[in-house]
């Protein structure tokens, strides 16, 4: 399959606000416009990758991602994942994936109590085989912006050890010349992104779809997403 044949679906919830940025990013890379799917849909056309975008689904009511995680469309997402399908959750999408239990842990309020919106430097971990990281050498550093109030990754010590032992920590925040602490939110083990035990589901706080063009915010997001699409297409 070529990258242009990739069928990408983006789930849209009330309060999603990065769905269109992600759509533009995916179209830029594949030449094919992804399908936006409303959260009430239960039967989806066949697809290769489903993305849960950033935003404030359901106004972050109850807990970030809690209500979106129980939306009808999530059954299709979970079925897709159970069949070994690829799922990407960015920011609020990461929060949604943890709320469904597809990924362990939870994203707490940032330790500094501030909404953080700026570039971060992240490093590719020594990760299990995963389409989301396989195109990038271990240790590769990328500059990708974050924009969140609840990005403070938390999990039990057992879960954290398991993530580390299994190679599920895909991205960690690292020191750079970017102003501010390397870890913008207090996340355990400096975690910026994790993958499921089979590597097919990834959640990450930084927004690759906001780093698609060197002239606007850098191109490292395009690098990350294009390597994902290439790995999924091969």
């Amino acid at each position: 399959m070529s990258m242009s044949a990739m069928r990408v679906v983006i789930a849209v919830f009330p309060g999603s606000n990065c769905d269109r940025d992600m759509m533009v990013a995916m179209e830029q890379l594949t030449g094919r416009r992804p399908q936006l799917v409303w959260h009430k849909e239960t039967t989806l056309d066949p697809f290769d990758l489903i993305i849960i975008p950033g935003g404030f689904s359901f106004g972050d009511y109850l807990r970030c991602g809690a209500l979106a995680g129980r939306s009808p469309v999530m059954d299709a997402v979970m079925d897709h994942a159970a069949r070994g399908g690829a799922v990407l959750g960015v920011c609020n999408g990461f929060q949604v994936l943890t709320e469904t239990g597809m990924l362990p842990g939870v994203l707490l309020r940032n330790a500094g109590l501030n909404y953080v919106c700026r570039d971060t430097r992240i490093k590719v971990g020594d990760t299990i085989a995963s389409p989301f990281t396989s195109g990038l050498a271990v240790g590769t550093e990328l500059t990708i912006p974050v924009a969140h109030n609840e990005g403070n990754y938390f999990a039990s010590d057992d879960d954290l050890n398991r993530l580390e032992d299994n190679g599920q920590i895909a991205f960690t925040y690292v020191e750079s010349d970017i102003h501010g602490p390397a870890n913008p939110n207090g996340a355990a083990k400096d975690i910026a992104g994790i993958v499921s035990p089979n590597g097919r589901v990834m959640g990450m706080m930084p927004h690759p779809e906001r780093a698609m063009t060197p002239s606007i915010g850098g191109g490292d997001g395009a690098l990350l997403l294009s390597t994902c699409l290439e790995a999924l297409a091969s």
Partner: protein
Amino acid sequence: MQVVVNISLKEGVLDPQGRAIEHSLRGLGFQEVSEVRVGKQITLDIDEADPARLHQRVARMCETLLSNTVIEDYVIEIVEQE
């Protein structure tokens, strides 16, 4: 029946909101304050007369949506009605 669910962060889970409130209280002169934690309370009216079944149903609600058991504990209180 009316049910009150109290949801609180588990011990050991950082509560930056509670810490900020504590800081603010101390700034207002309440030096005796410590260990401020913020939780939430959800009240529900439920059409179920049997207390045991009611409790079981609400516990299911807590486990599936109302609380995130990774970080939160919940306490269910059934309010007696006349």
